[in-house]
């Protein structure tokens, strides 16, 4: 009965170890303070983000956290938000929902952040909403890096505030553009086979666009090899205009493979997968991108005549190690500026509730680089609603079609698509919000 004796002593040792480990860990529980909101002290506001820094979707998006922190550092150097300095805890989720859940748990339970800002990915955010359930915990989930229309449901996601126009809006506006400019052409579509892509299908249907060939791809499966399959199908169907509704690495694989297979089409890139510098970095030759079309709600990152772009480029040089200034950096700094205004609007006595009610009440008047209006209101948690179209020139710059930005707005339902008359608020003095 050697196993018996062995087992008994092992049992005791293991049990003692497990119980004492649990007991020891009880100490930090008393560190809970009843006075201030979690993540806020007299000198600091702690925010968190989950984003792919590694893995198949990382190129491009991995630049977002440092660019956000760069703007926060600029604000911190100029007095912070009511004397509190903003810090951003960054977690790599490799674009995997499982990791996003685990890392958000860490942000909430271990790092004890005040709010999550800019978490990226439709599937990831959905998994987090279900499992970590920021809504039930009352923790603000601000300015997600996704346009999934489902997050507009303020009852289901009470603490979630989207910033981007929904993918349905994007597809609707894109659909109208296609109908007006490419009538009678054979149409092709590549889309990510999850809620991100499903949104696009809904939008195109709303706009009355029918594709002659649709190629879904599984998230994470994008590669030069799988892209050969996509292009093969498009080529066989003779598609003349191809819409690419996927992440940047997927657009990159599609464009590079199309060039290699000598397949010529008019490409239209969705806003998610249309960042020129990332596309170049993943191996798309400049000549392939030239003439492709793209959609955006922000000004082009190369447009130095835009006061916001110019200002953010300055911050990028001084605070972000002069990284290549692309759409990712612009999106990140714009999100950071929105965040600072939300925190300011939350008041000196900053709480979860105060930030969220401030966003509902005054969020629509915040200064932002976007050419689309901001629509926050009571129960309305989706920010932007509009897009403009442009064409990439040989330098990879997205130039607005017709020479000037003409923004069209719509909703995620059956609403009409209208030309926007929105006039953007001027950049606050020195780029420091005073709201």
């Amino acid at each position, binding site marked *: 009965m050697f196993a*018996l004796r062995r087992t008994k002593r092992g049992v005791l040792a293991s*049990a003692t170890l497990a119980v004492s480990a649990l007991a020891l860990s009880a100490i930090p529980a008393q560190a809970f303070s009843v006075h201030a909101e979690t993540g806020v002290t007299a000198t600091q506001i702690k925010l968190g983000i989950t984003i792919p820094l590694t893995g198949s979707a990382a190129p491009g998006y991995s630049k977002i956290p440092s660019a956000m922190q760069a703007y926060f550092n600029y604000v911190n150097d100029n007095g912070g938000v009511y004397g509190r300095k903003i810090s951003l805890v960054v977690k790599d989720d490799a674009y995997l929902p499982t*990791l996003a859940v685990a890392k958000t748990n860490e942000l909430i339970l271990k790092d004890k952040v005040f709010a999550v800002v800019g978490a990226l990915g439709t599937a990831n955010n959905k998994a987090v909403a*279900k499992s970590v359930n920021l809504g039930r915990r009352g923790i603000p989930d601000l300015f997600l890096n996704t346009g999934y229309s489902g997050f507009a449901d303020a009852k289901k996601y009470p603490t979630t505030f989207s910033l981007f126009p929904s993918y349905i809006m994007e597809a609707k506006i894109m659909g109208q553009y296609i109908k007006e400019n490419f009538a009678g052409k054979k149409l092709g579509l590549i889309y990510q086979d999850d809620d991100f892509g499903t949104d696009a299908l809904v939008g195109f249907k709303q706009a009355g666009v029918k594709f002659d060939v649709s190629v879904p791809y599984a998230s994470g499966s994008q590669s030069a090899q799988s892209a050969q399959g996509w292009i093969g199908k498009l080529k066989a169907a003779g598609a003349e205009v191809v819409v690419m509704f996927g992440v940047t690495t997927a657009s990159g694989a599609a464009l590079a493979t199309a060039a290699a297979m000598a397949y010529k089409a008019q490409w239209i890139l969705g806003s998610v997968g249309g960042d020129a510098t990332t596309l170049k970095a993943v191996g798309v030759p400049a000549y392939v991108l030239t003439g492709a079309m793209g959609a955006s709600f922000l000004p082009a990152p190369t447009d130095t005549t835009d006061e916001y772009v110019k200002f953010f480029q300055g911050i990028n040089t001084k605070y972000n190690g002069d990284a290549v200034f692309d759409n990712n950096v612009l999106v990140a700094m714009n999100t950071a500026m929105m965040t600072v205004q939300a925190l300011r609007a939350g008041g000196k006595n900053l709480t979860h509730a105060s930030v969220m009610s401030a966003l509902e009440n005054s969020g629509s008047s915040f200064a932002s680089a976007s050419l689309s209006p901001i629509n926050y209101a009571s129960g309305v948690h989706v920010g932007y609603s509009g897009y403009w179209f442009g064409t990439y020139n040989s330098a990879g710059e997205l130039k607005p079609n017709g020479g000037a930005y003409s923004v069209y707005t719509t909703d995620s339902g059956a609403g009409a698509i209208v030309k926007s008359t929105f006039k953007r608020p001027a950049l606050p003095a020195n780029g420091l919000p005073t709201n």
Partner: protein
Amino acid sequence: MLKRKPAAQVQIDMDKNIARRKIVGATFFMFLGIALFIASNIVDELRVYQGATVAVYVVAISSIILLTGYSGQISLGHGALMAIGAYAAVLSRNYWNFPIPLTFAVAVLAAALFGALLGMAAGRLSGPYLAGTTLALAVGLPSLANQFKILGGEEGLTYDVGFPPLSLGQDFTQYKWFFWIAALAALAITWVIFNILGSRYGRQWRALRSNPTAAALLGVHVARSKVLAFTISSGIAGLAGALMSMTISLVTPSAFPLSLSFAIVTGAVLAGVTLLTGSIVGAVVLVAIPEVTAALATHLGGSEKVTSNLPGLMMSTLLILSVLFFPNGPQLHRRKTRKS
């Protein structure tokens, strides 16, 4: 000359031994259950959540200990069996609306069934060939989910065990609920394995592990015995998979990477692969490693990229060191040293 006891007396002594062992075991499990219950009310939410993860790993590591430590078969594919359990549970929940305890039973049955089939193949293989076959399973199987719409692709399926019952109070968090379910399952399954290992099957497996030929001569049906071990181990792995998915409310291929299969084998080796109770130590180590490496990376000023890769490095190092210096696990080694 030694005086031999009559056979009947030996039988009585053995029965007494077994009875005493069962009482000690039952008392211990009750004590542990109460201790865990108290602990879950004292510690903060992070520790409760980690406790739930520890409980899941305890179940997973136990399945390896039963298989490798007792029946002498190796599997690098238990992550895939966990995936089967998890998908079976979530499908039975989402399509037939099974109550939660029943979904766990479905997980066990589905994984056991698959394990039985695998075990039949495994019966013909041993050592590196068996390791290779199961490894292929771990690599290939979870990504199959991307091929079938019903399995939800990379985005996965939501596995919702629901909020804790209101009768437990307003402050009863979701994670505490997960912990209770996982800890209860871990205690129950450990108790079951404890008893199986003490039964004639356990003794057969040990004989098999030490010397299959001798075991066969003694009348042990080698192939059947091996398949049985594989089946039970797979069922337990299936339960671990369902429990793990519960803690993240999600079943997705990315929850079952190759590294998961390696992690639970590492946990079993660190625990001492022949010690069932070592599963707790192994599980605590597996949960502690990312914590330690994160602290280390912060201390050294490393980036998040470093932090996310360090645990793998540390786990591999521990595995190599453990095999080099304590091939039977640290606990067993210490005991042997003391005896000699």
